[in-house]
């Protein structure tokens, strides 16, 4: 890490701040050499540690890509080589031909994109209200939202399904939710339940809490309405939070598997994760094709993360979650 040219010195772990070093040093040349050596050792240790952690994190992804291009014979080997002996890129084509992935990818993208928009809109407005607007029920509502995060999805999937199934005036249902199939096998069931999440409200509330209330008060004195204060004054202050929530919302929509499987029957409404299950049969998994499909389905998320990683990490750090 090159810190020498920076206007403000940046400390790395193991470095000693200049003012602290002054108090303890015996003599200038010895102290200088010792500090340089310490700094070098710390950096080497840090780089080795980071490289090792990165390797651990990257290896499964590398293995996924390499498995995607292996031959069937190599897949059956007891100790296959890390790098494939022959690269079978046609596995990607075979994987794409095994199911209508263009439909599945389109649907997953629509779900992910719509969840980004709705989660940012509803999550930000609810988060702002809980953080900055004074009303008696705020702590109770916040506690209730936190409590809902502690209930696993599997425990509420059937009640959720029943809500979608008996939705009045949809899918042939009457006003009492009878007679038809409600939202089942429709875009409504795919989109509406994921429009906002308790976690996104919680995350954005944490960001809004850190913004200066004085700005809001000044805007009120200047005569701005509450929605304009939220949209034009305060929300622009929490861009890292918005990006974090957007990425998580897209990831949630893109990777959603069980809910779309349960509420759809038409192939035109199936999503990419359901499509990948084609390669896992009862007693036979086509690892080459499964990994090829998984590699392709992971690409959008990897690209988004690479572009927005700085904001994403900052988002978690600033919200106090990390």
């Amino acid at each position, binding site marked *: 890490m090159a810190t020498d040219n920076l206007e403000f010195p940046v400390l790395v772990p193991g470095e000693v701040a200049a003012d602290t070093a002054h108090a303890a040093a015996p003599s200038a040349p010895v102290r200088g050499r010792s500090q340089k050596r310490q700094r070098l050792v710390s950096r080497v240790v840090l780089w080795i540690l980071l490289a090792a952690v990165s390797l651990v994190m990257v290896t499964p992804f590398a293995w996924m890509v390499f498995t995607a291009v292996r031959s*069937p*014979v190599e*897949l*059956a*080997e*007891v100790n296959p080589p890390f790098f494939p002996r022959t690269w079978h890129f046609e596995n990607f084509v075979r994987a794409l*031909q*095994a*199911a*209508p992935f263009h439909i599945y990818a389109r649907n997953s993208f629509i779900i992910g994109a719509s969840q980004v928009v709705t989660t940012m809109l509803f999550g930000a407005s609810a988060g702002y209200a809980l953080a900055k607007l004074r009303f008696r029920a705020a702590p109770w509502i916040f506690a209730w939202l936190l409590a809902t995060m502690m209930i*696993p999805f*599997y*425990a509420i*999937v*059937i009640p959720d*399904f*029943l809500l979608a*199934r*008996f939705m009045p005036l949809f899918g042939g249902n009457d006003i009492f939710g009878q007679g038809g*199939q409600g939202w*089942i096998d429709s875009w409504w069931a795919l989109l509406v339940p994921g429009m906002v999440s308790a976690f996104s409200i919680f995350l954005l509330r944490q960001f809004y809490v850190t913004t200066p209330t004085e700005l809001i008060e000044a805007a009120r004195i200047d005569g701005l309405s509450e929605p304009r204060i939220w949209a034009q004054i305060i929300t622009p202050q929490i861009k890292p939070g918005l990006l974090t929530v957007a990425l998580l919302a897209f990831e949630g929509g893109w990777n959603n598997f*069980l809910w779309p*499987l*349960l509420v759809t*029957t*038409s*192939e035109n409404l199936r999503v990419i994760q359901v499509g990948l*299950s*084609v*390669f*896992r*049969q*009862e*007693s*036979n*998994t*086509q*690892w080459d094709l*499964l990994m090829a499909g998984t590699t392709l389905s992971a690409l959008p998320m990897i690209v988004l993360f690479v572009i927005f990683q700085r904001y994403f990490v900052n988002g978690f750090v600033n919200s106090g979650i990390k």
Partner: protein
Amino acid sequence: MINRRQLLAAAGIAGVGVSAAACSAGGAKPAASGAKPTATGELKGSLNLITPEFAGTEGKADLEDGILKKFTQKNPGVTFQVDYVPWDKLNEKLSTQIAGGTPSDLMMMGMGWTAPFAQKKVFAPLDESVLGDAKVPKLLLDNAKYNGKLYAVPLLLESRPFIYRKDLLGKIGIADPNRKTVDEFTQMLKEIKTKTGKVPLDMLASSLRQVWGQMTFAFGGTQFSDDGMKCYFNSDQAVKALEWMVMLQKEGLSDVNQRVATGQPGSYQKGENLLGWQSSSVWPTFSKQSPELIKDENLGMVLCPTADGSKKILYQGGTLVGLSTRSKSPDAALAVMQYMLSNDALVAASKSTGKVPANSNIAKGTDLGGNKILDFCQQNLDASVTDGGTPAWMEIRGKMDPIVEGAVLGTKTVKQAIDELQKMAEESIARVK
């Protein structure tokens, strides 16, 4: 500790109960004595079919453009909406559909699932005339019954014979590993172990629940009473079956620790064993990855012997189809069931899925896709056995493996494991009474 599958199953069971109560409110009502296919009149209706088979573009084409199209050509008034669901999420999908009161007209599911769904009145009783000319092995038909009535039709089977390496066994002087009794089979395994030093049999690395199920039959027992409300896990035969499995592990004749992740090459495929308890569906994998294993000179197949030597047995997993009590077109649905059990439809389904047709009427030599393990199993359907047979099976089956594994690995005694299994099963059955 409850896992998420059990959590959903519990919620599903509650939902199914509610739905079952609501079933009387709507949908067609097939006769209580059993729904019969009617030959007269034009069939009409839009049928929903849920299936864990025929996944992917090719499978979909095989089913919809092949098998079902032949039916709709003769019955143009019938249309299909097919819902493809992977096996590992089928229970969740069926449970939510049923809880929501929107079960598919025709539901494909696994062996042993019939009684739980029939008991909840999700499946309509069927008249045995739905079988048409098909000859389904009695024990498989019994597994599709509840309280003496037929509720589902077995279609495709995943059979588990013993397959063996002719070449390797030949080298140690064993030309034919077919043995009359379990004891003789065990002696042969010991002989192989002595001569080669290898673990002879790849069996305990499979689902231990299924191994125990098969061996309970091999020792002359059964797992449940005819009505499924009594459990015989603590019968002498079931105890002997578990003791046999423990002995296999202790003597190094088979090894739980050879288990691999799904899809990874198993120890038989890797050449570590000379015999394997393998499914007919390993054929496509072997043909791609280890073609030398399926050459005639290397591959042999035998059935499992029984303790008294009176017969041979063949474990069957499989896919059945049931008719929803809420189907609005039961006549059309019944006609489809009967058609799917016909030779033509089953042969096509078998070629597409690599599974054994559950109809022993299919003539020897019929082309089933060149899978020799499948052909062998097809010719031995009369030896079929399978586990399950209680309305509480969906809950019981998920809890069996860890307990049986505890006994096999020696972390608990056979008696402790048997007591635990019996108690668990009795409690599960009590909940569905």
